[in-house]
């Protein structure tokens, strides 16, 4: 029997007040595989991640993570959110935040020594051991982002979801982060939202998922400048979809016969 896929979407639709954000989305990510989500802003990438986390439910269709409902397997999944949507003046230090990754092991009072060690290891993994006691407010944007990644690593996840982790950090930090992610790729599945082709090649050499109301697979090798432009330009989105369907053998939308 084949291994249970990490993620399986079947005919999933989700709309918010204004209209559908995702429509009839079906895809599967096999066990142990990592990939990237690309697509224009407002295309539904973050919604897709939130569906995977079970933070929102689909209007139609089914979602399985490790073969179960997303809300049932949350402890095996970790999430690094996109924005720096945190109050920078909140009184916590870096280690306090990373320890939150061990919340599911906490009953009352203090974190156990094991949890503290795990948190320290996670901080070391992102190269921030020396600022463990530093306040969140005193860290740079890149350091804050890495603290959030360390917090996700402290969860010891089997599936790591990252929403544009490099959006707010400089190049030298990015290089280091990529090194970290590449190392982690062997241990867990990584799904990363990114616009950066360079980055994508560090996560997957196989295919990416293009998210823009619908979800299509693209081989990384096919991601030429033209394809990228098509994906990101909304006027040409329809055309792009037709072509993709054409490639997949569905000619119902094609102009030629």
């Amino acid at each position, binding site marked *: 029997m084949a291994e249970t896929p990490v993620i399986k979407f079947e005919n999933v639709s989700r709309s918010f007040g204004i209209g559908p954000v995702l429509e009839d989305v079906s895809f599967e990510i096999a066990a142990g595989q990592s990939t990237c989500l690309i697509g224009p802003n407002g295309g539904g990438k973050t919604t897709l991640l939130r569906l995977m*986390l079970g*933070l929102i439910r689909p209007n139609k269709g089914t979602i399985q993570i490790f073969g179960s409902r997303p809300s049932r397997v*949350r*402890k095996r*999944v*970790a*999430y690094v*959110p996109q924005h720096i949507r*945190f*109050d920078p*003046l*909140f*009184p*916590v*230090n870096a280690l*306090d*935040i990373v*320890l*939150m*990754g061990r*919340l*599911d092991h*906490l009953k*009352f*009072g*203090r*974190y156990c020594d094991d949890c503290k060690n795990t948190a320290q290891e996670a901080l070391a993994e992102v190269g921030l051991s020396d600022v463990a006691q530093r*306040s*969140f*407010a*005193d860290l*740079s944007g890149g350091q804050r982002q890495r603290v959030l990644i360390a*917090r996700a690593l402290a*969860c010891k996840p089997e599936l790591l979801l990252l929403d544009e982790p490099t959006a707010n950090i400089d190049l030298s930090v990015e290089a280091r982060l990529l090194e970290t992610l590449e190392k982690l790729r062997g241990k867990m599945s990584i799904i990363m939202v990114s616009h950066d082709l360079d980055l994508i090649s560090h996560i997957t050499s196989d295919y990416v998922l293009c998210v823009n109301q619908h979800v299509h697979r693209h081989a990384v090798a096919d991601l030429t400048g033209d394809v990228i432009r098509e994906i990101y330009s909304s006027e040409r989105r329809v055309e792009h979809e037709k072509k993709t369907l054409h490639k997949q053998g569905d000619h119902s939308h094609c102009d030629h016969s």
Partner: protein
Amino acid sequence: MTDFFQALLDPDAAFLRHALFAGLIASFTFGIVGSYVVARRISYIAAAIAHSVLGGIGAAIYFQRSYDLPWLTPTIGALAAALLSALIIGIVSLTAKEREDTIIGTIWAAGMAIGLLFIHYTPGPAVNLESYIFGNILFTTRADLIITAVLGLSVILISLLFYNKLLAVCFDEEFARLRGVNASFYYLLLLCLVGICVVLLVQLTGIILAIALIVLPAATASRLTSRLSKVMVIAVALSMLCTTGGLAISYSSQTPTGPVVVLIAAGLYILSLPFTIGRARLRKKSSP
């Protein structure tokens, strides 16, 4: 000021000792709960709960006198109103986030309106509203002291037991939820702690000034340190300083206690402002 300390030893001035102890015990709750309130930026919720307490006080006095229920004291009414308001605001803000400010305003005004109506219809001698609105710690009785101690201890115990979970929920509710923490429960728990804290404050500073003692010591402490547990310790110490100092000054100068306590807290906060500026400069220097 020395006459205050002499009076503390006077066997006939039990009221002053009661007031001092009540202030010191309650300081633990202001310091601890206030730190959460400042960190999570919910001081407006605390203010709304404080004002709505008048509804509970008015209702308690009305039913106590109309139906001869001596056990139904204003403190019990205040506690019930504070917890009810905390739960209503919490549940509405959890289920319909965009309406949070509306419900805060509604609870704030409706609570006071209910209180004023009940007091209007209360039979018997006129109710002294002023002591609830502006507080009077010098009227603290032994029974009040026991209630203060019980409520204060429960707040301290809950805050210590659930410190890390409350911290996580305040910092990032969504993440806490993803890690299997019942974030809604802990948010409501926090608002209930705020409610209890407010009830203790009503006696000390009254409804209107209550918010000052929840927010100011914790805000001052936040200027001096950047870790919630340390903020709490400093805020408790500052609250003790404010309540004791306020009591001493007001006793010596024959002025109302509540406003003096609040002004000391406000003064300390203003004095702390240069510290943040100092830290910000330091940060600029150290970062490349």
